[in-house]
């Protein structure tokens, strides 16, 4: 299949893709006669080309433990299409009518207030690019080889342009009392998901988001309203937000005690480990792709840090013996996906590809060995190890023990 732009499939040499496209019923525009068929008329809401097959991957289709992973290898730039944003919800996706939805803010405030969606949209708005990453992302990466492809290894992370109101503005409306130190957010899902946020953090860059990538937040992402705590573990960005209680202490909710805490070798567990540390991963070439023949490739990937901006990404093609600086391509927003790329000529030999991110605090993405040395083997969350992909002589790309 020859196209003006090298397609993802051409890059990957995925078997079967070319055959599938030549048979696809939507391929009728490619006629050879002199009379050409007219194309489709405008549509209410456009969809990806039928030749594209990017999909989220779901572990458990039932509601019991539902999550789905973003196909990071398919993405360009820094924005995750809203329909491919990863999902994690504990009691299913509720259907909420925005006309009847309310956000109540109460507790240690001068005047409790109830906001309609219309109220919130009238307020001063901000639009910001931020990643959201589940702190259980890369849980399979505690083993040396890790997951076989980047959707499984890193796909519980996505990045959107979020639009909404700064929580600080809303807290100004209600007036926070002097003895307040936390807020407790609550969702309108069946399980009333709840998390506590330190007030200092809530007054910083926390948003109440109703927009995602130019349209309303998707149902799986909290429609019509979600909390967004930039740079922090995803579960604290409570979706379907219905209530904020300003409080004198954290509620010690189940999801900040029993879950999302990090057990250390001495039996103590770190709590409120909210920030997602700097991380990067190569998305092309990555696991389960295939390089069709030696020659030029661009190593591409994503880097992000919950503490600020990405200042540097290095790439290694020899398993970490030598590193070269990758180019940062496009915008470099704080607490957002940052795209990197690095030219590479594949000589047809075996190579171990790795990337290593540094953020503007000077923090350098660690190896798995360094994480295990610091935390032992009983932690589940916050795995930001350097990930290695093995390119074999056959051109096949697999997970690799770094």
């Amino acid at each position: 299949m020859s196209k003006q732009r090298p397609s993802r499939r051409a890059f990957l040499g995925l078997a079967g893709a070319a055959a599938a496209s030549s048979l696809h019923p939507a391929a009728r525009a490619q006629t050879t006669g002199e009379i050409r068929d007219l194309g489709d008329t405008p549509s209410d809401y456009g969809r990806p080309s039928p030749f594209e097959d990017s999909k989220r991957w779901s572990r458990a289709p039932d509601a019991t433990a539902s999550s789905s992973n973003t196909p990071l290898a398919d993405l360009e730039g820094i924005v995750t299409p809203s329909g491919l944003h990863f999902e994690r919800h504990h009691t299913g996706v509720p259907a909420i009518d925005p006309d009847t939805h309310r956000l109540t803010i109460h507790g240690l405030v001068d005047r409790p207030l109830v906001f309609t969606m219309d109220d919130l949209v009238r307020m001063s708005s901000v639009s910001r690019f931020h990643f959201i990453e589940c702190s259980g992302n890369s849980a399979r990466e505690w083993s040396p080889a890790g997951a076989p492809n980047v959707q499984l290894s890193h796909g519980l992370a996505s990045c959107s342009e979020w639009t909404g109101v700064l929580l600080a503005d809303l807290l100004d409306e209600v007036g926070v009392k002097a003895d307040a130190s936390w807020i407790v957010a609550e969702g309108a899902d069946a399980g009333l998901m709840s998390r506590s946020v330190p007030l200092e953090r809530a007054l910083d860059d926390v948003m109440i988001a109703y927009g995602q990538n130019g349209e309303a937040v998707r149902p799986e992402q909290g429609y019509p309203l979600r909390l967004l705590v930039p740079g922090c573990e995803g579960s604290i960005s409570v979706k379907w937000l219905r209530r904020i209680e300003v409080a004198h202490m954290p509620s010690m909710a189940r999801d900040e005690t029993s879950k999302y805490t990090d057990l250390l070798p001495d039996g103590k567990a770190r709590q409120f480990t909210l920030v997602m540390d700097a991380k990067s991963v190569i998305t092309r070439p990555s696991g389960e792709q295939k390089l069709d023949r030696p020659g030029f490739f661009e190593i591409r990937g994503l880097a992000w840090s919950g503490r600020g901006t990405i200042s540097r990404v290095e790439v290694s093609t020899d398993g970490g013996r030598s590193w070269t600086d990758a180019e940062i391509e496009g915008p470099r927003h704080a607490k957002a996906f940052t795209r990197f790329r690095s030219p590479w000529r594949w000589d047809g030999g075996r190579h171990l590809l790795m990337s290593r991110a540094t953020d503007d605090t000077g923090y350098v993405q660690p190896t798995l060995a360094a994480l295990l040395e610091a935390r032992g083997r009983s932690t589940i969350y916050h795995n930001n190890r350097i990930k290695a992909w093995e390119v074999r002589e056959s051109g096949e790309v697999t997970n690799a023990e770094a």
Partner: protein
Amino acid sequence: MPRRSWRPTFALLFVSGVVFAAESERTGLGSEPTAEELGAAGYTVFPDGKGLPAGSGTVSEGRAVYQQFCAACHGKNAEGDEAAALVGGRDSLTSGRPRKTVESYWPYATTLWDYIRRSMPYESPGSLNDDEIYAVVAHLLHLGGVVGEDAVLDQESLPRVEMPNREGFVSDDRPDTD
């Protein structure tokens, strides 16, 4: 908390000899709820007992509630089945094979009350009344050896329950790698 310094409604700022009148950033949007509306909006239960409603439950009452609503997923004796084990696992946290249960891991008994009220039973959250929640919490804490057979839990006694892993948590001290 810099934004709170913007109150009262007018602040006079002297900058380079020029006087600015900075209006409050309040928009006046949103409406003040009635007491009834606020009561219906929901609540949070805190470790010090704030938010806990009236009502009470005993271990034996809780045994019946547990068998009816919880045992099918969590096992007859809360040992875990399709859903998580709720008891056992003490002294396992340093073993390399930690078993994190309510008994072995959860630092506050109030969290159990709050979580059951929010999210359990899984298929019908919200279906237990306050007495039933106190009771099933009492039963689970008794199964875990945290309270005695004759325990009665209510808004006074529940926050006073000392969980075995109460001192098991530390604050975030990352970054922890070089």
